[in-house]
C-alpha cells in the first residue's frame, strides 16, 4: 500500500499576508482622513499665522500671532465668542430637557411594536433640507407676518421676531434628533432589573432617576451633547436666516474669508479649540469610555 503525501491547501494571499489585508481594508479611508481631513485642518492652522497686505490684499506668508492677538483683544469678537458658546450651551440644555422624556417614553414605555416607528418619526425631519427647515422657522418667527406673531396678536403682544431667541429655538429644533437618538439608545441598554433593584431597595421614582438612571445614561447624554454643542457652535446659516443682527462665530469667519483669509482662519480655530476643551472636560468624567 502506498501513501500519497498531500500538502495541506495553502491559504489565500490575504491569509498569508495579514498586513496586506489590513492595508486593503483601511487604505482608502485612512488616506481620506489624513490627506483631505487633517490636511485641510493643517492648512487652516497654518493660514491663521499669516497676514494680508493692507494695500494689495495679497497673502503675506510670514509667521505672526497678529490675528490671534486681534481676536482675543477686540471686545466685539470676545462678545461674539461668549454669545456663541452661550447659544450652544442653551441649545444643548434645551435639547437635553426635551430629549430625555421623549427617549424614555420611546425606550421604556412604548410597546416593542411602536419603537421602530417612533425612531423613524424622529429621523424623518433629518431627511428634509437644513435650509428648508431654517426658512420654515423664518416664516414662524417673522416679526409682523410670522405664524407666532399672528398667533399671539389677539393677546396684544408682538411675535419674538428675529434675534438670539430665534436662533436658539431654530437650532434646538434642528439638532433635537441628534440628542434623542443616543439617549434613546442609552435608555434601551438600561436593564429593567436595575430599576427594579433600586425600587426594591426602597428608592422612589425620583431617587432612582437621580442615583441610577442618570449616571447610567450619562455617556449617552454626553454623546448627544457633543452633537448639539458642536453643531450649534459652528453654525452661521441659522443666524443669517433667523438671527437678525445677531452674529455668531461662523458669521465672522464668513464675512472675513474673502478679504482677510488669515484672520478668518484664526477665528475658525476658536470653535475647534472650544470643542477640544469640551471633549477634554467630558473625558475627565469618564463618559467617553463606554461610547
Amino acid at each position, binding site marked *: 500500500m502506498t501513501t500519497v503525501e498531500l500538502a495541506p491547501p495553502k491559504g489565500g494571499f490575504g491569509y498569508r499576508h495579514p498586513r496586506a489585508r489590513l492595508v486593503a481594508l483601511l487604505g482608502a479611508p485612512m488616506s481620506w482622513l489624513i490627506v483631505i481631513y487633517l490636511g485641510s485642518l493643517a492648512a487652516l492652522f497654518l493660514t491663521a499665522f499669516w497676514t494680508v497686505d493692507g494695500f494689495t490684499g495679497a497673502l503675506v506668508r510670514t509667521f505672526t500671532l497678529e490675528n490671534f492677538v486681534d481676536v482675543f483683544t477686540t471686545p466685539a469678537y470676545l462678545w461674539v465668542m461668549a454669545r456663541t458658546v452661550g447659544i450652544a450651551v442653551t441649545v444643548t440644555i434645551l435639547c437635553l430637557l426635551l430629549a430625555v422624556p421623549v427617549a424614555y417614553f420611546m425606550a421604556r414605555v412604548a410597546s416593542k411594536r411602536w419603537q421602530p416607528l417612533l425612531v423613524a418619526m424622529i429621523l424623518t425631519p433629518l431627511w428634509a433640507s437644513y435650509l428648508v427647515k431654517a426658512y420654515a422657522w423664518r416664516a414662524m418667527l417673522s416679526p409682523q407676518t410670522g405664524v407666532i406673531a399672528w398667533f399671539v396678536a389677539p393677546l396684544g403682544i408682538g411675535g419674538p421676531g428675529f434675534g438670539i431667541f430665534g436662533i436658539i429655538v431654530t437650532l434646538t429644533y434642528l439638532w433635537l434628533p441628534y440628542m434623542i437618538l443616543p439617549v434613546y439608545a442609552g435608555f434601551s441598554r438600561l436593564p429593567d432589573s436595575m430599576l427594579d433593584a433600586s425600587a*426594591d431597595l426602597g428608592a422612589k421614582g425620583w431617587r432612582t432617576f437621580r442615583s441610577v438612571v442618570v449616571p447610567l445614561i450619562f455617556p449617552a447624554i454626553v454623546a448627544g451633547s457633543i452633537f448639539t454643542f458642536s453643531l450649534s457652535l459652528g453654525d452661521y446659516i441659522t443666524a443669517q436666516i433667523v438671527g437678525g443682527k445677531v452674529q455668531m462665530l461662523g458669521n465672522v469667519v464668513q464675512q472675513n474669508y474673502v478679504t482677510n483669509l488669515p484672520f478668518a482662519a484664526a477665528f475658525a480655530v476658536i470653535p475647534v479649540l472650544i470643542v477640544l476643551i469640551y471633549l477634554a472636560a467630558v473625558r475627565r468624567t469618564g463618559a467617553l469610555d463606554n461610547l
Partner: protein
Amino acid sequence: MVNSVAISLRGLTRRFGDVVAVDAIDLDVLDGEFLSLLGPSGSGKTTVLRMIAGFERPDAGTIELAGTDVTMTAPYARDVNTVFQDYALFPHMTVAENVQYGLRVKKVAKGERVERARAALTAVRLAGYEDRKPAQLSGGQRQRVALARALVNRPKVLLLDEPLGALDLKLREQMQVELKEIQREVGITFVFVTHDQDEALTMSDRIVVINEGRIEQLGTPTEVYEHPATAFVAGFVGISNLLDPVTAEQVIGRPGTWSVRPEKIHVHLSGEPAPAGHHHLSGTVREVIYVGMSTRFVVDLPAGGSLMAVRQNSEGSTDLGHLRGQCVNLSWDQRYEYQVSN
C-alpha cells in the same frame, strides 16, 4: 413550634395577554423557612416572586406580608428585598456603595450605614472588597454582593430569583451550602426560585413544585421526592420512573399509574430471588451508563415502557457493560412504590 406566616398568597393570578402565567395560587410561607419555588421555565414561578416583590401587579388575588395586605403597595414600600438573576448591581457604584444603597435611601446615619455594610460583606465573606467596582468581581463574588446588598436592609423576607443560575457547577454547589448557612444565621425567610431540582432539594425546608401557573405539590424535600403527588412532580423532581397501568396491574396487582425511584430498585445480577415484601419483574437491559459513583441501568419491560435502576458502585465489579441486552430481575420494597395522579 408553630411558625407564624410571613407571606400569604390567596387566589394570586397574573395573565400576560391570553396566557395565564399564574393561576389562582394559594400559598403560606412560614416565618424563617427556606421555601423553594421549583418548576420548569415558563411555569410562572418567577412571576410569583415578582408579584411578591411588587414588580408585577396581580390581575386577581391578594398578597399579605406578615398579616398586612400589600397587594397594591409599591415595591419600595414593601419590607422584602430581592436578589436578581443577573444580580442587577449598579455598575457605576463600588461594592460598598451598592451595599449601602438601600440604607442611604432610608436615610440611615453614615456611621451605622458603614458598619452594617461591613457586617453584611463579612457575612458573605467579601470583607476587603468595598472599593471594587462590580466589573472587577467574578460571578460568584457579584452574587454575594447582591446578597449582601439585600440582607443589609434586614428585610422580613428575602426573595431570590435563580441567583445561582449563572455560576458554574462547582461554585453553584458551594454557594448552595453557603446560602443555606447564611439563611440559618440571619433567620430571615427565604423564597428561592429555581428550576434545578438538586438545588431545591439541597437547600429547602419546603418545596413548592409549580407547573403551568399552578401548584403541583407543596412539601418537604423528602415528601416531594419520595412521595410525588402527581406524575409531573415524579418526572420533574428526580428521574421519572413510571409503571403504566398494564404493567402495574401485573406487578403490583392494583390499577393506576405507579412510580418507583431508580435508587430503590435492586438489579439482581446473579438471579437470586427477590426478598419477601418486594415486588419484582424482569426485563431486558437496554443501556448501562457508568456515572462514577453509581451505574444506571435502563431496563425495557416486557409489557412496554422502561424503568431506570441505579446501583451504587460501592462493591463488586463496577464494569457492567456486558449486561447490555441481557435479561435481569428487578425488585423493590413495596413501601417505596407510590401511585401518582395524572
